[in-house]
Structures are given as C-alpha cells and as structure tokens.
C-alpha cells in the first residue's frame, strides 16, 4: 500500500473504493509490527481498531453522507489521556494496571467524528522530559536515526506518525512536548492557546501550562483535528467559551505578514550554527517576498527556563500528590502503616526525574521559601507574558527555533538535568504566556536530521497561525 500523508488522500481513496478502513487499519497494524524496535507503542488496540474499522466501512457503504469529518483518520494517543475501559499509566509504575473510568473530552470528540484510535503511545513519565528516555517502558528511538532521541515528552506520538503506523497523534505540551518531538521527527506540531482544548481526562502535570496538541504530516490535518477537539467543555472550567473557527477551511494566506524574531534567540550562545543559518535563510526569503521581518529585543529569554521550572514543579508536586497507593495504582505490599503506604508506594512508583521535580516543587512551595521562589517566578511570568503580548500587538507572528541543537544521542544528557532543562529554552515561552505555537519541518542538518521552525501567535489566533503555517509549509519547507 502506498504511504498516505494526509486525510484528503485517504478520503479520496475511500471514496473511489480503492481502500477500505479495514485495509488501512491492517496496513498500520503491520507497520506497528515491523517498527516494534522503535518502542513507540505501549498498547495496540488491534481487535478494537479492526472492529471499529468494520463498523465504519459498513456505515460508509450504507450512506457515505453519514460519516464524520474524521472518517479515515487513524490516530494514536499519548499515554496520559484517558479513554474509558483502556489503561493509562503516564509511562509510570505508579499507575500500572490502571483502567480509565471515563474518556477525555478531546478524545471523545475525535471518536464522535469517526476517528479510529489504534493504540496508546510511549512518552516521558508524567510528560516530564525532552527525550522520551524517562519512561517505565524504556526509551523510544528516532525513526530517522535510531541512535538519536525522538524528542519528548510526546516522543511515542511523533515516532508513531513518522514511522507510518497512524496518520496523526494526540500529544500534550507543557513546555514544548508536542513541538520539539515534531521537529525531531520531521513533522508538524501544534500547541493551542491555553484553554482552547479541554484538559478533562488529561493526567495533569502542570495545570496552568498543559495543553493537548496534535502531531501530523500536514498543516491541514493538524488544523482539522484541533478544530474537532477544541471548544468549551463544562468538565474543564478553564476551557474557553470562545467559539471555535473552522481552521481547516481557512488555510488560504495571501497577505504580507509582520514577523518578529528575537536577537537573543537567534544569537543565543547555545544555538547550533546550522540551525541559525537555516533560520536566517528563511528570514531572508521571507523578506525577499516582501513580508516584514523585524529583529526585536526581548530581554527575558534567559529568565524563562528558571521561572518555568519553579512554577511547573510546584504545580506537579501538588498534582501528583493524588498518587498515594490507596484508591488506585501501585501499592507497596510491605507497608505496615498508612504513612508507609504513601511513602513506599510513591518512592517505588515514580521515576527519579519525577521525584526530582516533586522534591523541587515541594521546596519552592514550602514555608519560608514560597515568596523567594514561587511568588518570584509568578512575577517573572507576569513580565514575560506582558512583554510577549505587547510584541504580538505589533506583529502577527514571532519566529523562533524549536531546539537549540539537532536531536542528540540516546543517553547523552541523562546525568545532567540542568542541561536537559535548558534545551527547552525556545519552546517554553508559548506555555508561559498561554499562546498558540506551531512547529514546522523546515529543513535538514548536514547529518540528515530534521530542523524545525516555530511560529507563535496571539491568544486564540489559531486560524491565522494555521493559514500562515500552510503558506510556510508549501513555500519554504524542504
């Protein structure tokens, strides 16, 4: 079977009766089998997906008008999203064997439009990580070069799409966890505005940062999936009441854009020269086509990561307190008191990285240190948000790198959490501010690994961001 890159191609093959959903699911299942060594899948819903495909084929045969907008879309979901009757573990031991009692709103909306869920994919434990090495299921390998990391935390998501085992994947993004693996695996990734997609049924890491996002081959597929998932939900009081625009049908971009970039980003000391030169070339090309691209000063870039790690670990230490070994999840059998149940179960159930973040979060929230760390970081966040939104009053988009370096070797940063944290420097800003951001596959390093480019837009400007992304994708991405 030929490799499908977009839902449009699949839907036209289905309409011409050259393809059935059962064929398609079988094709993906066989690809999952042949790419097993990449370790992208935690669980494959083989029988259920085939069954669902059969039902959809019958429904379509009966009356093609009755199928949903995502008919033909086979997706994988990150192991932090609840799907009723299926396990979800956040790639941890503490949730081993846990079965969801309900379905996340975002996932339910995909099912309602006739998407098929083919399996649950690997990620960094509780979405904490940039490499997908922090998983109880072991590391995920980059399909482009198996010695490299696929990015994280939605590494399994990126690999499942890149290795042609599904058409798109649902990931989550707290500080770059959709965009960075998308860039490391040569895909499109979108993190929407905070509040655009309901977080109901998403295992929380840092609630004021987390958003559900999409990884796909094309901008249109990401736009369509997002417009299906987005919108108000009474189960998440932070979900926005703003109506959702039809992103996928408004992808035409014919005007001249006003784009800002930060000197502090492109001239950052840590940035790889090939990434810098690829982005500089893009800037020249955009200028050549009469878009206005302007260097803007942004003095807070180096404060983003410090503030981010104070705030997210604080929120994580609080969110993860629910994992206590009492009502669900792993429990240490030797514990003789309730206190021991908590302490032993949590110690054995969480990975070292998760424990590191819980300890840091506990520290910054503890009496005596709260103001110096937590409040200080909230104030820094205020400054970063104000300044960023101010820039977005004058500009349509902000251009940024995704990662300062190409995908690195597996195991390379394992012993140095600070170095690992600093690699998120360009992606965290969108989550700090709550604005939408995309990652687009721009070009390649001399070693063949992909280079992504990021664009951020103002809050709830997804429609404009998608249209501009489609334009960039078609005209500048190689």
């Amino acid at each position, binding site marked *: 079977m030929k490799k499908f890159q977009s839902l449009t191609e699949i839907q036209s093959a289905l309409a011409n009766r050259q393809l059935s959903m059962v064929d398609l699911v079988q094709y993906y299942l066989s690809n999952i089998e042949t790419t097993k060594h990449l370790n992208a899948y935690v669980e494959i819903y083989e029988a259920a997906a085939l069954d669902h495909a059969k039902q959809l084929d019958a429904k379509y045969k009966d009356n093609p008008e009755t199928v949903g907008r995502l008919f033909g879309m086979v997706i994988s979901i990150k192991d932090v999203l609840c799907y009723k009757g299926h396990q979800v573990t956040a790639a941890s031991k503490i949730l081993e*064997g*846990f*079965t969801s*009692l309900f379905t996340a709103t975002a996932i339910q909306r995909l099912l309602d439009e006739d998407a098929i869920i083919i399996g649950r994919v690997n990620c960094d434990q509780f979405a904490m990580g940039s490499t997908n090495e922090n998983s109880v299921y072991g590391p995920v390998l980059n399909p482009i070069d198996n010695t490299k990391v696929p990015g994280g935390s939605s590494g399994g998501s990126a690999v499942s799409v890149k290795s042609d085992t599904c058409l798109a994947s649902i990931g989550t993004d707290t500080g770059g966890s959709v965009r960075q693996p998308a860039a490391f695996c040569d895909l499109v990734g979108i993190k929407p505005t*905070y*509040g655009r997609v309901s977080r109901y049924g998403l295992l929380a890491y840092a609630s004021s940062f987390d958003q559900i996002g999409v990884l796909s081959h094309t901008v249109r597929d990401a736009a369509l999936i997002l417009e299906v998932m987005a919108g108000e939900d*009474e*189960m998440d*009081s932070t979900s*926005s*009441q*703003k109506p959702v625009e039809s992103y996928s049908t408004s992808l035409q971009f014919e005007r001249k854009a006003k784009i800002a970039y930060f000197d502090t980003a492109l001239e950052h000391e840590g940035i790889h020269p090939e990434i810098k030169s690829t982005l500089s070339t893009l800037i020249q090309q955009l200028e050549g086509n009469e878009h206005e691209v302007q260097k803007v000063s942004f003095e*807070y870039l*180096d*404060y983003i990561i*410090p*503030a981010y790690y*104070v705030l997210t670990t604080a929120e994580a*230490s609080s969110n993860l*307190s629910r994992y*206590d*070994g*009492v*009502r*669900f*999840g792993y*429990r240490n059998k030797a514990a*003789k*008191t*309730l*206190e*021991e*149940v*908590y*302490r032993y179960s*949590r*110690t054995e159930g969480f990975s*070292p990285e998760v*424990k*590191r973040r*819980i*300890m*840091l979060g*506990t*520290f910054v929230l503890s009496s005596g*240190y709260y103001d*110096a*760390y937590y*409040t*200080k970081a*909230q*104030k*820094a*966040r*205020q*400054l970063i*948000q104000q300044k960023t939104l101010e820039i977005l009053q004058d500009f349509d988009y902000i251009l940024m790198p995704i990662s300062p370096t190409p995908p690195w070797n597996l195991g390379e940063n394992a012993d140095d*959490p*600070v170095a690992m*944290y600093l690699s998120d420097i360009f992606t965290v800003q969108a989550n700090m501010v709550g604005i939408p951001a995309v990652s687009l596959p721009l070009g390649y390093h001399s070693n063949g690994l992909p280079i992504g480019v990021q664009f951020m837009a103002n809050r709830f400007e997804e429609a404009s961001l998608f249209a501009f992304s489609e334009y960039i994708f078609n005209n500048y991405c190689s």
Partner: protein
Amino acid sequence: MEIDKDLILKLEKLARLQLSETERTQLTGDLNNILKMVSKLEELDTDNIKPLIYVSDEINRLRADEVKNQVSKVEALKNAPDKDENYFKVPNMMKK
C-alpha cells in the same frame, strides 16, 4: 540558598517519599544545581509587579451545582490495590 541533608529529609517527609542514601546525595547535588540556575531570577526587578496567577483573562464559568458525573461504587473500587465490597483498605491506623 544551599540545600543540605536536613532539608532533603524534611522535603522527603512533606512529599511523602522515602529516599535511599544514594538518592539523597544525588538529589542534594541536583537540586543545588537547579537552584543555581533558578537564582538567575534574582536579577529581575519585580517590585510592584503582581504575580501572574491566571494565564487566561477569561472568567471561569462554573457549571450548575447539580449532582452528576458520579462514579459508581463498583467503578470507584475497580482500580483499588486493596479493597472489600464497600471500602478501600489500608493498614490499621489505630493503636491497639
């Protein structure tokens, strides 16, 4: 700010964790390195800046206070590591 072993022990208790000596030594180093990175924030003048608490400028809309979305007893107990027909079970908390 320097994190020492006493503080690690205190945080461990607050976080309901029980670390080994090796983990404690490792974490002391890690947390001190992270705090060194975080100390960068001290350079920022944040006098008269309000802490950002809500990312979105929308007002939370609460749903009506009606009884719904209840998980049945059977469902609620389904994932419990130790239970009987009606309750989650934990080790005895009372002194004999």
